[in-house]
């Protein structure tokens, strides 16, 4: 079986009018750099934890922005806060702080 590292997505509608985006707005207030992520994936490329566990900063932020936060809870527990993603971010997004904030707001 080939490990493709990706899967096909079924057709999916994201309704930003009805989804609860409170968390995304709170995050933008507390860490404004969360708005400038361009989803380049540099963070995921350097992530040590991602080599062993399904965790992706890019995916987490995308889901939070959409207001689909349920799927990111388990991902947030995988981060080791090593900060390598913050070092490589070409846009200066404070990824480590964002992950810590999300963990506080969603889990703790």
């Amino acid at each position, binding site marked *: 079986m*080939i490990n*493709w*590292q*990706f*899967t*096909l*997505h*079924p*057709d999916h509608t994201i309704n930003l009018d009805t989804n609860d985006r409170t968390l995304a707005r709170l995050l933008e207030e507390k860490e404004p750099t969360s708005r400038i992520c*361009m989803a*380049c*994936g540099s963070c*995921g490329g350097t992530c040590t934890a991602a080599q062993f566990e399904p965790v*992706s900063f*890019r995916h987490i932020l995308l889901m939070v922005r959409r207001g689909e936060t349920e799927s990111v809870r388990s991902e947030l527990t995988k981060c080791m806060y090593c900060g390598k993603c913050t070092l490589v971010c070409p846009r200066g997004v404070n990824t480590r702080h964002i992950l810590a904030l999300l963990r506080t707001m969603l889990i703790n």
Partner: protein
Amino acid sequence: MKIEGKRALWREYQKAIADDHYFYVRSCVRQTFFPGAEKAFIEIMKNRLGKDLYEEPIHTTCTGIAYHSDIVPLETTMTVVARQFALMTENGYENLAVSCVTSFGVYSEVLETWHHFPETEEKTREMLWKATRREFKKPANVAHASDILYKFRDQIAAQAVYPLINRHTGQPLRVVEHIGCHYAKMFPHKGVGGAEYPYVLVGMIESWGGEVVDYPERRHCCGFGFRQYLIQANRGYTFSNTKKKFDSMAPYKPDMIITNCPGCPMFLDRGQYAIAELEGITYGENGYGIPVFTFEEVAGLVLGFDPWDLGLQFHQVAVEPLLDKMGIPYDPAMKYAGSGGKFIGSPELPEVLKC
């Protein structure tokens, strides 16, 4: 509406295409994945249509892939494009013939930028001079290679050996035409038929005897999308788009797909393999896929070129079912023959997609 009114409206969707003396710039993707396509185009232009077409060996990428992946800034792209124009000027040409749809979009974007912001053209001229000591004139005409074959489609039809007709039934082949996004979605007035009614491939298909298939997702992207494919984790988006197109066209049972973009045949062809492996779905007859071609390859087939000289063995989806329908003879033993007719080995076959 009176027919005169319709014609007047349609004139807005036409573009000027130079008649002769082209400076040809190649495509990174096309010459890598479909190397026979550009060779066939040059052969058709020079020897079948008798046109003057010049290719400068030291021309480079237009930077399109890097530009749309956000790793090359616009200023660099404009300087590289200016160098291509300089090579064209130095060789005495003023009509640019572009192989790649994305390059066509890049050249169009740079020329539009210079038109609306003349200071960027001056800056580019300065940077090109500092970097290479070259100067350039802007092209009098920029045409995509498909525009040029569209212009001469009836001359090709007059020389046709194998028209797009099913030899078994005598009916026209049912053809899906797929236009690359950067051809006319960026600057509609620069494409034949604009973004709404792109006619460039339809004209070829109708002229060569085929029947165009209309289907709901006809104008949908092939899925390439540059960054969404170049980042491996995002490739699910790419093939989800590709699958959406195939799910939409499959009920109409097309015999083949023709594209004018180098990336689209790559994704519609290899994508069928990826979808077959991931989902277990195939879209052609009897477990095969729907054969995908570049417009140069189809022109070559119509004109009677040998399928293996056209590089059709590079395709993932087997082309033999279509060759049989068109009545084109081929030698299976020569499919993977290298120079001198020596067998160079055949690729491993996929598990789901029949090839």
